Structures are given as structure tokens and as C-alpha cells.
């Protein structure tokens, strides 16, 4: 017995697999959350928008292109009147107070629109009324703090809680969007605003319009999908290896069991693989052993019956030696027939049990030698020997297969015609005759031991009903088979298929 390879029970292996998959997926997701850098923000700065409006292509921090279109009509958002924002920033010592007021008639409009519009106009160095802005994805909590007079600390706290659009300026954290209209170029260039559409009325009355990019997936969605894909890949990889590892011993077991089925005298299987498979192998070996003992017992019984029958037959054969010639020959013929039946029974029993020595042999030579020998006894057998076809087998057993099949053809159709070929790694021997064939329902039944067709029963040379059964048993022990079929042109075809050697 070999060392136990992959010895854990399937139950444990599967459980471990599930746990491993779960843990690795969670680890990947956790790593994604903890270690991936923040995605670039979606918005863009006033300076970027100004450049785009002036007709220069701009790439936003999130990697999207911002390009202005020139239209003769203003976009829909540009036709609305501008609310007038009032923003004050007062500083008292370290305390700064920020105030913004928006005219009430434009309450639904985003409060950032006028702020951005004004900043943009400043950046473009044009009159504010030539610029229109529509902020997308309004984020109301941006402004709640702004709507009322708040201390800088409150705004800062509020922004920490709710917003991402924050920049660091000296010691103070300031919300740029609303505030820094008066704080110079730094703010204009560095601060990112939520994506907004902007329109600039050109001197010729047409409009230059930028619309914010509409990516199919936002940055955070892409990142989620990346982690999903990474964990799926890892799970697939783990599952693939685990499935292979789990399937290999079962596969090997199935293969070995199949070989054992082909040859009942094959050596027992070795114990390998998970505990469940090893249990199955043990049970299988035990069953095999019982089967072999049973078959061997039966063969021994048939052999001893044969022996016991042949002894009185031998005595009889010698005792009639002195009898008148006519009687002697008739009795001798009867004895011969009985002996033939005994031989058939023995051959059948042996086909199942014998552990014959197998060797690489040339099936073409074997068939032609049998054909030659049978021709010498006067049988009409046709065979054109072709190229050698090698098989691994027991020469005596295979000879018996060929002899039995030719015997049948000659007995029922007076002549046999053989062909041997190699197709798809299989040696195929066809024994054809030009007799009357068999009814379809008999084609399988004639392989049953001791079954004889009416024709076989009526002939005096009729055997025991074991010829085909023996042939099939031997062919199957070689991993092949024998089948019968009616030929389209009339007559019967016995086809023997054996695994051929490369």
C-alpha cells in the first residue's frame, strides 16, 4: 500500500476550500479599501473650464476630456436669468465669518451656479453676464453651512463631515467653491468644483459651451469592479487547483476500476486519495477478490467435472477398441462429440478466469496462421493479410476467438471471409459470411452461454452454445468486444474490436 497522498476526507477538503475562498475574497476587498489611493475627484477647476471655453482642449484630473462646442443658440441653462449672489468674508482676528445670500426667486437653482459663473467670468476676463453655469450633481450639504453665518471652525467641521472638495491653505481649511472669488489665482487654478456646464457668449453672438464629461462608470464604481474582478480571479484560481486535486484520485480510481472490469485477474488497486476514495477502493478490492474467488471456484468445478467425465470416456474409448469396426467408429464419434462439449465448457470457464501471459503480438500473423490451419482442414476461409497490427494479448485466447468466429461462419454459411484493419487505435477483425444472417432479436442472445439458435440445435455438428460466449469473454478480457450484425447485402458479420498498440 502506498503512502496516503491527498489523504484528507473530501468533506474536510471542500470545507477548507470554501473557507479559503471566503477569506481570500475578503482579504482582497479589505486590501482594496485600505491601500488603494483615492480616485481622482470628478470635478475640474475654474481655470480648466476657462481654457476649455476659449477653445483649448483640457484633460480634467479624473482623466476626461473637456472640449467646448460652438453653437449659434445658447444652451437651455443659459437662458435663465442669473441669481445675484452676495458673499461676504469678514475677518475678526483669527475668526473669519463667511456669508452668502442668494436671491429668493431662484431658490431651486443651485446656489453654486452664480458663484462659479462669476469666478469663471473673472478667469475669462469678461463681463459676468456673458457667462452661464449649471452645476451638475448638486451637493446641498456644501452650502448649508454657507447659507447661514457660521464661524470658520463650524464650516471646517461641517466640511470634514460632508465634503471632499477641500483644499489646504496655510493653517485654515477653506471651502473654495463659495469663498475664494476674491482670493486670487491660486484658488482659481487649484480648487476643484463639482462638474458643471458652462456657456460663454462669444463676441459674434454665438455660444461656446462645455458640458461636463459623462463617464459610463464613475471612479469609485471602477474601483469596486476592479476588486470584484481580482477576487473572482483568485477564487477561480483556487477552485481550479482544488478541483484538480480532488478529481485526480477519483479519476485514477475510475480508470483503475475500468481496467479491472476488463480483466478480472488484474492486480488490486492501490490505496490513494481522499479518505472516501480509499474506502471505496478497499470495498472495490474486496468485491473484486470475492468475485475472483467465486469465478475461480466455478472454473475449478467445471474443470473437475470435465476431468471426471473424460476418465470414463477414455475407458470407453479403449474398451471399444476390440469391438466390430462399425460400432467402434460410431461410438468413437460419439465420444469425440462429448469431448468437444467438454472442451467448449472448459474453454469458456477459462476465458473468464485464466491469468494468461500477455505479450505484444502481431494480430495479422495470428489471424493468417489460424486461417492457414483451418484451410488445411478443408474450410473455405478468405483472408488477405495486410500490414501487421500489434495488440497486447494472450495468443492462445485470441486464437480461440478467431477460430470460434470462423467456425461459426463455416458451420452456418459454409465459408468465411476475413478482414483485419486498424482504425482509430483499434484493431478491428471482421468475419463475414454469406449465410442467411440472424433475426435482429437473436444478435445479442446468441452471446448468452448455452444459448443456441434453432439452426444450431438441428445440426449434428452443433456445439454447446459456448463459442460466441467464449469469444466475447476473451475479447472483453482484452478490453475489447465481439458484436454481431447483419450485413446489408445479406449474411452475418462478426466484428471483434481490440485495443491496438501504437
Amino acid at each position, binding site marked *: 500500500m502506498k503512502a496516503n497522498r491527498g489523504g484528507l476526507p473530501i468533506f474536510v477538503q471542500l470545507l477548507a476550500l470554501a473557507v479559503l475562498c471566503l477569506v481570500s475574497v475578503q482579504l482582497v476587498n479589505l486590501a482594496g479599501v485600505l491601500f488603494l489611493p483615492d480616485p481622482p475627484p470628478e470635478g475640474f477647476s475654474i481655470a480648466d473650464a476657462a481654457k476649455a471655453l476659449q477653445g483649448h482642449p483640457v484633460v480634467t484630473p479624473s482623466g476626461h476630456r473637456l472640449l467646448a462646442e460652438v453653437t449659434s443658440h445658447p444652451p437651455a441653462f443659459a437662458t435663465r436669468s442669473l441669481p445675484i449672489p452676495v458673499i461676504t468674508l469678514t475677518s475678526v482676528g483669527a475668526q473669519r465669518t463667511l456669508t452668502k445670500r442668494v436671491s429668493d426667486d431662484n431658490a431651486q437653482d443651485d446656489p453654486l451656479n452664480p458663484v462659479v459663473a462669476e469666478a469663471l467670468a473673472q478667469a475669462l476676463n469678461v463681463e459676468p453676464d456673458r457667462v452661464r453655469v449649471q452645476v451638475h450633481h448638486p451637493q446641498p450639504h456644501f452650502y448649508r453651512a454657507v447659507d447661514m453665518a457660521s464661524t470658520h471652525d463650524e464650516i471646517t467641521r461641517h466640511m470634514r463631515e460632508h465634503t471632499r472638495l477641500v483644499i489646504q491653505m496655510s493653517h485654515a481649511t477653506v471651502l473654495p467653491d463659495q469663498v475664494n472669488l476674491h482670493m486670487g489665482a491660486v484658488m482659481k487654478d487649484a480648487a476643484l468644483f463639482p462638474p458643471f456646464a458652462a456657456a460663454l457668449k462669444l463676441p459674434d453672438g454665438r455660444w461656446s459651451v462645455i458640458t461636463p464629461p459623462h463617464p459610463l462608470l464613475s471612479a469609485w464604481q471602477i474601483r469596486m469592479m476592479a476588486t470584484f474582478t481580482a477576487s473572482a480571479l483568485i477564487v477561480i484560481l483556487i477552485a481550479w487547483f482544488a478541483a484538480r486535486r480532488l478529481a485526480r484520485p477519483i479519476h485514477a480510481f475510475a480508470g483503475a476500476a475500468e481496467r479491472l472490469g476488463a480483466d478480472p485477474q488484474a492486480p488490486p488497486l492501490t490505496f490513494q486519495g481522499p479518505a472516501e476514495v480509499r474506502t471505496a477502493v478497499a470495498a472495490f478490492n474486496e468485491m473484486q477478490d470475492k468475485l475472483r474467488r467465486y469465478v475461480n471456484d466455478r472454473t475449478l468445478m467445471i474443470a473437475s467435472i470435465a476431468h471426471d467425465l*473424460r476418465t470414463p470416456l477414455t475407458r470407453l474409448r479403449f474398451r471399444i477398441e476390440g469391438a466390430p469396426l462399425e460400432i467402434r467408429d460410431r461410438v*468413437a464419434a460419439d465420444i469425440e462429440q462429448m*469431448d468437444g462439449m467438454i472442451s467448449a465448457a472448459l474453454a469458456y470457464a477459462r476465458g473468464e478466469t485464466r491469468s494468461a501471459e500477455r505479450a505484444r*503480438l502481431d494480430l495479422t500473423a495470428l489471424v493468417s*496462421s489460424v486461417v492457414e490451419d483451418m484451410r488445411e482442414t478443408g474450410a473455405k476461409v478468405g483472408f488477405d*493479410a495486410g500490414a501487421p497490427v500489434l495488440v497486447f494479448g494472450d495468443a492462445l485466447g485470441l486464437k480461440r476467438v478467431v477460430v470460434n468466429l470462423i467456425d461459426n461462419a463455416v458451420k452456418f454459411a459454409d465459408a468465411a471471409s476475413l478482414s483485419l484493419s486498424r482504425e482509430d487505435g483499434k484493431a478491428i477483425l471482421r468475419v463475414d459470411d454469406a449465410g442467411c444472417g440472424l433475426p435482429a432479436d437473436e444478435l445479442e442472445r446468441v452471446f448468452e452461454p448455452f444459448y443456441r439458435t434453432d439452426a444450431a440445435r438441428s445440426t449434428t455438428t452443433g456445439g454447446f452454445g459456448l463459442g460466441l460466449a467464449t469469444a466475447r469473454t476473451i475479447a472483453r478480457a482484452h478490453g475489447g468486444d465481439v458484436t454481431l450484425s447483419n450485413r446489408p447485402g445479406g449474411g452475418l458479420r462478426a466484428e471483434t474490436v481490440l485495443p491496438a498498440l501504437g
Partner: protein
Amino acid sequence: MTAEESLGRVLVVDDDPGIRDVLTEFLGRHGYEVEAAADTRAMDVAIDERPPDVVVLDLMMPGEDGLSACKRLYAAGGPPVIMLSAMGEETDRIVGLELGADDYLPKPCNPRELLARVRAVLRRRRETSRAAAPTLFLSFDGWKLDLVRRELSSPQGVTVNLSSGEFNLLRVFVERPERVLTRDQLLDLARPANSDAFDRAIDVQISRLRRKLDDGSGREIIRTIRGEGYVFAARTGA
């Protein structure tokens, strides 16, 4: 039989008294001096007392079976053995012959065939010296001819079956290498006594043998000598 003394001494070993009786009676009637033993122990005693010229040995017997007795007799250089067995299948025959039996007859046998085999074994023993071990194999150029199984093995170890005609012919060739053999000689040597093969059959069999001996090297082992016959051109050995 007109011989004033017996044709030879035969020891019949069989556990069945009926067989012993009929064999003793039959062989005795044909001029042999017959003794019978019921098992191999009785056989040993009989051989010690008066060694027979041939032993007719049953295979399946209680106690020591025929095969092991045969092996023992052969190893000790004892008398020739004809195995007589109810297990008459080809494998049993092969095992018997490989273990040193001189001949093997299945039960039930034709009495006259037994008689012929006894005669043949006795004649062979007279012709050949006692010590010569029977040849089981002949070889040539890496090929091996198994005389018991009547099989040929190629240098690559592939078994090549021969028909009995081919086997007889090849054996004649292998035993007479490097000699021109005419068709008539081949017919005489290869044909079994009661066969009536034609002259033509030799040529057919030789062409078949050539095909079976073709190892792809293109070398002809059996060469045709125009107008004379055939030569077996191979290095041979026992």
C-alpha cells in the same frame, strides 16, 4: 506382434483403476510389457525396481500431481514421459512439454494414437543419446522460435503466430542454415507424415514466411537460389 521379447517396458501411472486396466490390457495386447501404479509414490517404487522405457503419466492425481512428478523425473534424467491428461487444452499441453514431458495426449485419446506416440518416444530415445536435453527454442538474427508453443518472437519482442505449415517449414530452415534446400527436400522435411500438400504450397508458404520475417531492414532471410531452391541466411543458435 512377432517379437520374441517385448517391444519395451511401459509404466502406467493413473489414479483411476479402470484406466490402468484398459491401458495395461491394450498396450499388453500390442506387445509391450506394462506395469501400473496408482500414484507417484508407487511410480517411484516401480522405477527403482525396474526402470521402464517410458512412463504414461496422468496429470491430475491425488497426492503429488503429474506435472511435478514429470518435472522431477526430467530433472533426475529418468525415463521419458508421455503425459495423459483430461486437461487437454493447449496451455496445459504447453506447460507439460515445457516441464520436460516428451509428449502430451489429451483424454479421451484414440488408443492407436497412444500406441504411435509410445513407439515414437521409444524410437527417439534409441536414436538420441540419453543426456541430450530436448530443445525448446531456436534462435536466429535476434528472432526466437518457440518449439513448444510453435510461436515466433521478433527481435522487438512481438509474438508472431505461425500456421503449422509455416512453423514446420521455418523449423526446417533454422535447423539447416546456409544450405541450399530444394523444393523437394523442403516438402519431405516440412510435411507431416500424413499430409498431402502440393508442391506449389511451399512457394506460397515461403512468401508468407518472408512477410512475417520482414523487420523493415530490407534484408532477405530466406533467399531464392534460381533453379535450385532456397537458402536460410541467418546466424542461428539454440
